[in-house]
């Protein structure tokens, strides 16, 4: 790194996703350029080769994620970046990564949909599309930053969980979070521990040096990793399989593997919970935000308090698994919850309904233009 007097720089969210990935030890990137995620693509192509990694320009998004899964199966930390239209093409491979327990991080910068939609317009309309893209309804961990520094930290955290749980993890931005540049002070970034992928020690199952690729004692456990193409034979398939990775249907062991794919995530859901809270004594209203609406919410909170009003604020950084414990712990004396989202139906609001007890839930929703602080304030009684 260049010698500098100050560690303050101007960085966009996209740039910080790329820097967070490099810090997390990402060694492989493949992508297909798409607004508003191209900033990540560009920086990874620029920087990764010089750091001993490989960055590929893929012919399309299907190949991009498939390349990443291949690199990860060989043992390298891998990431791709896309937006809604590219995600639509990647869904099959997201499921393949989930089924084959392959760690991979996908940076998903939302834009206005459906279809090619509005390439340069902000939206938060892909929350349910991202989370509910698997047959069987498995949980895909999703992290949502709202500042460049959070982009850095949450991308790093996404890599950590992806490695620990051997599953695809999504860092979900929106256009404004990805493309807005701000001054950031590198000295304020939290110290982050980078994990190396835990390799399996050879466990001969008596089958000519082969081993059970997906061996676990308890369904909550995560199998240790065996790289494809190494000295130990690893069997990988996207079809239903037993612990050896062999295609099999309806055997008790295969069903156990299918349950295990979800149970390993459920068992760690508490540890994944990440929120930022700014609770005020005596507040009866809570504003719950994520992504770019966190910034609007912060301004709304500032204005309300400047006018001697009382309001609490909760910003969700780990969208899925739903951080239910930390949300519930923030509801003391709260009677009204305001959830601003840049989508028309209140996508995360619909997910949260069973988390709340007796509070009144109010959405602030908008398409094609950003929610303003005043529009949030108008819903505060």
């Amino acid at each position: 790194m260049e010698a500098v007097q100050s560690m303050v720089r101007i960085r966009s969210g996209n740039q910080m996703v790329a820097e967070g990935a490099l810090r997390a030890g990402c060694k492989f990137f493949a992508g297909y350029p798409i607004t508003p995620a191209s900033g990540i693509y560009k920086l990874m192509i620029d920087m990764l080769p010089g750091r001993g990694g490989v960055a590929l320009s893929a012919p399309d998004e299907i190949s991009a994620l498939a390349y990443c899964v291949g690199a990860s199966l060989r043992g390298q930390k891998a990431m791709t970046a896309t937006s809604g239209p590219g995600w639509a093409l990647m869904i099959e491979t997201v499921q393949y990564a989930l089924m084959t327990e392959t760690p991979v991080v996908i940076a998903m910068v939302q834009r206005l949909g459906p279809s090619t939609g509005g390439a340069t317009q902000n939206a938060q309309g892909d929350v349910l599309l991202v989370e509910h893209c698997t047959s069987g309804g498995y949980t895909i961990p999703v992290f949502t930053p709202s500042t460049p520094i959070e982009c850095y930290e949450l991308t790093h955290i996404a890599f950590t969980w992806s490695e620990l749980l051997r599953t695809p993890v999504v860092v979900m931005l929106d256009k404004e979070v990805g493309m807005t540049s701000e001054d950031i002070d590198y000295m304020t970034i939290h110290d982050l521990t980078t994990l190396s992928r835990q390799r399996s020690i050879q466990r001969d199952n008596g089958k000519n040096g082969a081993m059970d690729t997906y061996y676990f004692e308890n369904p909550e456990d995560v199998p240790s990793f065996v790289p494809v193409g190494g000295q130990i034979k690893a069997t990988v398939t996207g079809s239903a399989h037993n612990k050896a990775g062999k295609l099999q249907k309806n055997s008790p062991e295969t069903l156990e593997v299918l349950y295990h794919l979800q149970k390993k995530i459920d068992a760690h859901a508490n540890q994944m919970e990440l929120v930022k809270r700014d609770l005020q004594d005596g507040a009866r209203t809570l504003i719950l935000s994520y992504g770019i609406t966190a910034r609007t919410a912060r301004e709304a909170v500032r204005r309300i308090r400047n006018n001697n009003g009382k309001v609490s604020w909760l910003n969700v950084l780990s969208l899925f698994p739903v951080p239910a414990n930390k949300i519930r712990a923030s509801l003391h004396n709260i009677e009204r919850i305001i959830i601003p989202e840049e989508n028309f139906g209140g996508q995360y609001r619909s997910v949260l309904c069973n988390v709340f007890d007796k509070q009144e839930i109010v959405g602030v929703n908008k398409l094609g233009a950003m929610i303003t602080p005043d529009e949030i304030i108008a819903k505060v009684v």
Partner: protein
Amino acid sequence: MTKKILNEENIFAGFGGQGVLSMGMMLAYAGMIENKEVCWMPSYGPEMRGGTANCIVIVSDEQISSPIVTKFDSAIVLNQPSLDKFESAVKPDGLLLYDSTNIINPPTREDIMIVPIAASAEAMKMENTRIMNMIVLGGLLGVRPIVQIETVIEALRKVLPERHHKLIPLNEKALRRGMELAGSAAVVTAG
């Protein structure tokens, strides 16, 4: 003596290719060098060139909460569609600074400060149309000294790759020319 807290919310708007986004970015960089909090939020159409482009730039002494602003202290506009769109978005007593070269319908508000400068015509006189944006930025800083011109030049030195550093004197000249033009512009002042 307490110093007034700086919180300048600006919008730069024009056609893609006029240097709208880079003009805003230079202000943000200069703000950062002067230890201000800064935020630069681009917005443009899907076209690479010729579409509409704008960026919101906030320069503040305090932490910037929301990058989303709907009323501006200053609107800096480079074409008619942007003028039509953003004239009404200037706060009362705010500033509307525009390149008058290509404007057919000038602004009409009486509660804001209006500064027309013929930046495109001036850039042609200086034989490089691409420095039009620096003339406009100089004009802005002439009216509202958000940052020092010297800091913008320092920012240019940091942002431009070495091979383009030979262009810095021309940019400096453009910034200073803009400042002069704004000083002598037929200013329509609020009230």
